[in-house]
């Protein structure tokens, strides 16, 4: 495998890791506050649909993004109402949200667009395009020289290849997702809000007796979870692909949960875990590279299943003991 191929695989890993990372951080905020959320998948799916649909109708991807975030927040609040206010079972509420989103998105898509449960393809301003960082080789250089971009990159030096292919050229959402990692770390471990958020996930009674609202903190966490899931979903339909198709979240919400456990609820480790899953997904797209490496023909289906196999392995606890936030999954009932 040459250097350029490696760069291309890594580039693809970053793109595929982005929705996982956003969803994983979303789950991190929620679970650190003691609210388990297996509805990440459903929220991403709803956001993917509404951002694509609204972006198509308005022609503006930014309006689409807002719509996606809005739809995800609505589902978050539903989860919050069920599990915080009414002290219901968080797993069941999450499952319900997944079913709701899976059915509702296709139903509304069919009713609005009559294209078999998908949105029309997004073009131009309806999509997030890649951002050319300064001095990177991009489509403009290709236009200026009249040659294809891939040719230009293939001829460039390794540093230029690394910069142009791996670092430059992603959509804004990829960069936002990456910035969310240090931001999450900072919020959790360096701010008052973070201290309280972590405390409410460990021992809500301690927070309550300190005179802080347990309910307020948990709703805040669930809202942040909604925003991040919304961005993740919008990324799927308006950046990674150009439009919504049925079930396009494809289990990413669950893979993000596995990554969260793998990362033991820590932001930087969440990044590494998501990049690992992203790499596995990228390799599935490049079976030629895998065959070059292992020198055996590997069926694509096997490669496709690898992220899910890793998920099962992680959830079965083969990667060491992961201790979730102690009050996770338990509704808070005030008692002496």
């Amino acid at each position: 495998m040459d250097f350029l191929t490696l760069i291309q695989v890594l580039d693809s890993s970053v793109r595929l890791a982005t929705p996982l990372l956003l969803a994983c951080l979303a789950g991190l905020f929620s679970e650190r506050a003691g609210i388990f959320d297996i509805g990440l998948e459903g929220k991403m799916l709803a956001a993917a649909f509404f951002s694509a649909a609204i972006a198509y109708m308005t022609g503006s991807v930014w309006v689409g993004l807002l719509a996606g975030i809005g739809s995800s927040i609505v589902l978050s609040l539903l989860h919050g109402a069920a599990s915080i206010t009414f002290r219901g079972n968080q797993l069941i509420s999450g499952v319900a949200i997944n079913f709701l989103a899976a059915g509702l998105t296709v139903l509304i898509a069919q009713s609005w667009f009559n294209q078999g449960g998908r949105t029309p393809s997004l073009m131009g301003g309806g999509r997030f395009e890649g951002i050319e960082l300064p001095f990177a080789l991009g489509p403009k250089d290709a236009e200026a020289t009249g040659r294809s971009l891939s040719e230009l990159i293939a001829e460039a030096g390794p540093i230029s290849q690394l910069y142009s292919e791996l670092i430059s050229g992603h959509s804004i959402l990829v960069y936002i997702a990456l910035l969310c990692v240090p931001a999450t770390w900072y919020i959790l471990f360096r701010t008052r809000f973070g201290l309280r958020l972590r405390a409410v996930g460990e021992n809500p009674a301690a927070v309550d007796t300190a005179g802080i609202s347990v309910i307020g903190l948990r709703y805040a966490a669930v809202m942040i979870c909604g925003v991040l899931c919304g961005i993740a979903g919008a990324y799927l339909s308006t950046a990674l692909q150009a439009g919504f198709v049925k079930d396009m979240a494809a289990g990413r919400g669950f893979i993000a949960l596995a990554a969260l456990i793998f990362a033991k609820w820590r932001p930087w480790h969440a990044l590494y875990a998501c990049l690992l899953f992203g790499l596995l997904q990228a390799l599935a797209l490049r079976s030629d590279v895998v065959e070059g490496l292992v020198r055996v023909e590997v069926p694509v289906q096997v490669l496709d299943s690898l992220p899910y196999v890793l998920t099962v392995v992680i959830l079965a606890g083969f990667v060491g003991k992961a201790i979730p936030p102690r009050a996770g999954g338990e509704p808070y009932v005030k008692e002496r």
Partner: protein
Amino acid sequence: MTDQAPAIELKGISKAFGPVQANKDISIRVMPGTIHGIIGENGAGKSTLMSILYGFYKADKGEIFIQGNKTEIPDSQAAIRAGIGMVFQHFKLVENFSVLENVVLGAEDGALLKPSLAKARFELMRLSEEYELNVDPDALIEEIGVGMQQRVEILKSLYRKADILILDEPTGVLTPSEADHLFRILRGLKEEGKTIILITHKLREIMDVTDTVSVMRRGEMTATVKTAETSPPQLAELMVGRKVLLSVDKQPASPGETVLEVKNLSVTDEDGVQRLKNVSFTVRAGEILGIAGVAGNGQSELLEVLGGIAKGTGEINLNGDAIDLTGKHSDGQTRRARGIAHVPEDRQRLGLIMDFMAWENTGFGYHNDERYQKNSLLMDNNALRADTAEKMERYDVRPPNPKLMAKSFSGGNQQKIVVAREIDRNPDLLLVGQPTRGVDIGAIEFIHKQLIALRDAGKAVLLVSVELDEIMSLSDRIAVMFDGQIMGERDPGETNETELGLLMAGVTDTETAA
């Protein structure tokens, strides 16, 4: 003193939970710079009253005055603002946070943590030194002992500038020396002008540290007296509403044959930690052997392995015959058949199923008895219910209704159900762990009488308790456990709390003498 405004004055506080009147028209004045005890049995309404004061519940009626000013306390935040700090029976600490983070939580100075933590660290060191709290700000809560955890709770209140400190059953989890340390701290706080409310059901603590004591019974305040002018028997009578025997009335033991012989018993837990190290002792018929020690020094493992719940190595003989410790006969059922009955330490976890009715709970271990079989397939539940009703009558379980869930009985009555079931088995050896933990005075008296009666009937009793008073008053011989070993045996008539306390802390005989 009389013209000074009380630190706290409650007027006509009432609170009902459904049909249960937890507090009835309670009025109380707590003077500043005093330690005021509130004593009462479990369920007398002490904790409810304090929860109202700390903003956890809202009173149905009544007024609260703090330092002479009428104050509304709708939530904990308001209580903290009014200068009230509370140390709950079950600590409200975040286990994987440091001491410093726990103290700062909810009392931060700004949105960023760094300046708050720096300021708190400085303040914490000062307070810790001033009141001899000996707290390490960077230690994690899960890695420090309960004594220090409790001091962190006190620090939390002091850091929030509390003038009034409420402690709810603070010594339940402490060793005698830790409790003494706590009382020294409380006296120091009092000298600084703080007002302290001590809620407890232990008469000795009231007599030791309080200036004034209020007694509660069934939601009502029955009396407020100066501690110097009262006595334990008088307080006990006010608490229970009748005369109570505080010391256990018993004749000297007349021990017979050896019933239980334990030789070199060892237990290693799942994590590979040796919990019990070569323990040997005997219990004879007609005597009570008391095992004293701070919780967690191997007593639980000893009871579990004797009761057939856990496995161990070594030798156990009952009435001269060996008991299988590791094989397939090493279980509770076989032990019962051999004549061992077991009142486990944690009745809610091992003694009862809380969501089962009383008659179902008393049936455990009797399922195969002839008298409860209707035919080869069905049980005769009516017989079981009738027997349960009879047992409940005999063991004074209140209310005597076999169809109530175990969880709806008070702690003392739950324990009586377990004791009734185990003693009625007519065992040769009774294992008892913490028989009166969380049990009110009236029930303690009753349970103690049952244990003495069993002894006098010529049975062997192995009593494990962390309450030194209980061990001293019931036992005919006392063995002290520390770190999985028996540190020594003493005659209760010839020893005292100081000597036992040293043994409990692992100080061996020679050092005691020196």
